[in-house]
């Protein structure tokens, strides 16, 4: 199934900068890398391990600690699925290299196979963060033998296959049918959005199905003890179940059987994907970059098209136009802002028939408790910080200029103004995400409107924070040498840096919320003071060091 051409192509893709090829060739890049990774990762990991510890020991009291493995694997799979979806749409359909492959004697399954493998490699990062600590923690506390770790390694290697293949199948199917009309690019974007929702929707549907199915059996399984609950939690992605069982029973033959089933299924899914790609992939790709006939401007109409704006407004609008019109940028910078807030709708869609029953109604009740105000504000602001940091708008604002950066250096616009325009584009789009999130909270979760209003006002602070950190990162470490837009945003380490920094900031907000949980006023004031101070500090850095740095960049 893995022939030489697929393998050769995979190597070419990796060497050509798809996947994780972060070049740290300057001293500055190394310092940045060490500083950010060295500070954020250990502190995030520390918090995460504390969390694992808590879950593990609570589960251990009911002799169900093994469930943590299947939970870990399931959450891992969902994260891989969501990030993988973005990656697949970008890499399979919008990356410039496809044009170069089409004339070569390569089969669709070889391109898909290679791009799939690169995606799997990329998603190992997620597994390393989410699953690996659980695997190791469990192994240590259960005094597991060598075989456990060998099984663990195999599971780690194969776990991304199902979620990515599942995502790829949905994407390919939808792209096959949206590849028409002269507005091809627009339809592709819409196709990408539909694919995202179908995928995530299906995912949640499976979960709710599994949840309903098991309402009655959970009680019985609980009584059985001995990790029997893990059967339930791993229904989200079917292969998770065998993977978890293999790890739980590694000492006995059942473990090996489960491992073999898991490996076999993963391989099977990969083969199905390849055969499917033969049927639909090229039909979805061919003609992607064709442009179409447009409207004609008559001399007398010219006046109506002219419009004068201030330099900053004009520049900001340009940034926004480019973000919206470049499919790769749209998916990774714009859409992601809207996708995150929409996630919180999904639980509503899958609740049991009577909405007054179950966990959700408890949550709704909680939202209206006065005691919960501080927590609601804290958690929402933490979420806004995370969402703002993950969109990569400012973290790729300089990188996106690529080889055309020189244009921005010869126009008579000060670097200060240019940075302002780029930051504004980031704030505007991040804030749209904030507005959507809060509207959903008000209208669907019955959040009191005054809290919504308060959040709308304070919510601007974290979007400024993450926009400033992003632009600073990208000014210091821009990725200008790229040949496809995909590389400017998807393979840009600054996006990862900004996600890490914003996650750390979100965690800090979480800690404050927890520390001051007795007083909502104190929580809110502390958070506002903290973020405002950070904003001011960053403002200073951006407009002193940042502008100097922009000047030094050689386009």
């Amino acid at each position: 199934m893995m022939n030489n051409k697929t393998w050769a192509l995979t190597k070419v893709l990796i060497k050509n900068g798809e996947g994780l090829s972060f070049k740290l060739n300057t001293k500055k890049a190394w310092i940045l890398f060490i500083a950010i990774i060295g500070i954020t990762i250990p502190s995030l990991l520390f918090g995460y391990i504390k969390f694992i510890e808590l879950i593990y020991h609570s589960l251990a009291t009911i002799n169900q600690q093994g469930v943590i493995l299947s939970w870990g694997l399931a959450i891992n799979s969902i994260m891989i699925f969501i990030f993988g979806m973005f990656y697949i749409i970008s890499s399979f359909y919008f990356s410039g290299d496809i044009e170069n492959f089409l004339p070569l004697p390569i089969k669709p399954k070889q391109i898909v196979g290679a791009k799939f493998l690169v995606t799997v490699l990329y998603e190992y990062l997620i597994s390393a963060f989410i699953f690996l600590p659980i695997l190791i923690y469990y192994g240590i506390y259960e005094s597991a033998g060598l075989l456990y770790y060998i099984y663990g390694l195999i599971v780690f290697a194969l776990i991304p296959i199902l979620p990515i293949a599942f995502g790829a199948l949905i994407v390919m199917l939808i792209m096959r049918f949206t590849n028409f009309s002269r507005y091809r690019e627009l339809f592709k974007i819409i196709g990408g959005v539909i694919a995202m929702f179908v995928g995530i929707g299906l995912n949640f549907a499976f979960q709710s199905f599994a949840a309903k199915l098991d309402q009655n059996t959970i009680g019985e399984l609980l009584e059985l003890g001995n990790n029997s609950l893990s059967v339930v939690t791993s229904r989200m992605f079917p292969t998770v179940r065998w993977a978890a069982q293999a790890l739980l029973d590694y000492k006995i033959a059942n473990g090996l059987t489960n491992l073999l089933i898991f490996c076999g299924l993963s391989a099977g899914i990969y083969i199905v994907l390849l055969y499917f790609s033969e049927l639909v992939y090229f039909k979805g790709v061919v003609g992607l970059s064709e442009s179409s006939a447009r409207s004609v401007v008559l001399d007398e109409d010219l006046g109506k098209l002219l419009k004068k704006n201030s330099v900053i407004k004009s520049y900001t609008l340009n940034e926004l136009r480019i973000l919206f019109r470049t499919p790769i940028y749209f998916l990774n910078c714009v859409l992601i802002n809207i996708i995150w807030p929409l996630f919180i709708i999904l639980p509503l869609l899958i609740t049991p028939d009577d909405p007054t029953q179950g966990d959700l109604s408890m949550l709704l009740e909680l939202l209206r408790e006065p005691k919960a105000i501080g927590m609601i504000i804290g958690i929402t602001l933490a979420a806004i910080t995370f969402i703002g940091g993950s969109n990569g708008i400012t973290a790729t604002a300089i990188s996106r200029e690529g080889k055309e950066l020189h244009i921005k250096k010869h126009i008579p616009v000060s670097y200060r103004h240019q940075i302002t325009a780029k930051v504004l584009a980031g704030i505007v789009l991040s804030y749209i995400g904030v507005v959507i999130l809060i509207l959903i909270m008000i209208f669907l979760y019955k959040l009191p409107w005054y809290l919504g209003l308060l959040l709308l006002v304070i919510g601007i602070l974290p979007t400024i924070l993450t926009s400033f950190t992003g632009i600073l990162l990208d000014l210091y470490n821009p990725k200008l040498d790229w040949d496809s837009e995909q590389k400017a945003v998807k393979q840009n380490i600054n996006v990862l840096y900004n996600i890490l920094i914003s996650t750390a900031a979100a965690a800090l907000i979480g800690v404050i919320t927890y520390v001051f949980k007795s007083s909502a006023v104190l929580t809110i004031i502390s958070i506002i003071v903290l973020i405002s101070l950070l904003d001011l500090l960053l403002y200073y850095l951006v407009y002193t060091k940042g502008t100097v740095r922009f000047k030094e960049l050689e386009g």
Partner: protein
Amino acid sequence: MLLRLEVIIVIYLENVSKTYSGGVKANDQISLTIPSGRIFGFLGPNGAGKTTMIKLITGILAVDSGRIEVNGIDIAKQPLAAKKQIGYVPDTPNMFLRLKGIEYLNFMADVYDVSLDERQVRIADLCRRFEMTKVLKNPIQSYSQGMRQKIVIIGVLLHQPSVWILDEPMTGLDPHSSYVLKEMMREHVNNNNTVFFSTHVLDVAEKICDEIAIINKGKILFTGDMAEMREHFRKNESLEKFFLELTHDEQ
């Protein structure tokens, strides 16, 4: 024909050096004065340092040492004022591809602070001359190479800069547009303005320029008019080979 306009020094370079981070000297101790009312050609083979020089004059790169003035304004000291004097056409016109032609022109007009009335007149005039009006509402991405070149030229001329700097401007232009551009360059210098352009094709330089400078390996080998250049080449045998290379490049 003997109308004499006052000749002003428009572009002034004094001992300009630029070394790239790899240690490659792109420009080495270059001094150059370019007067007004001339089409000044910058001739040299590919990789001679022409583009680097243009990037230094337009403020895209900073000099390591030396001084550059445009219309008497030091580009290092007053970058924005100096940049406003210049209309610069880069060698690759693949920029702002996701914007529509008209959006790009509005952006450039905003950036160079061109009033609405002025842009009305100039966009209409330039687009008519380059036959670009019809396609203004289409994305630049859908333009051919030549059309992209033309929209960029229109964009940088909207603010009526006194100094035009064009990097290999004839590449990719169709014969008609190339003719229009040459005509416009001539008109521009007739109004006592300056055109500075680079080319690696001797033939282009010969046909258009009033004066040329020849650059190779970051050093200026010659400055003067066409007749002086031929004379210079005849006397200097080592340059003759170089001259042949440039001639050869035409093919």
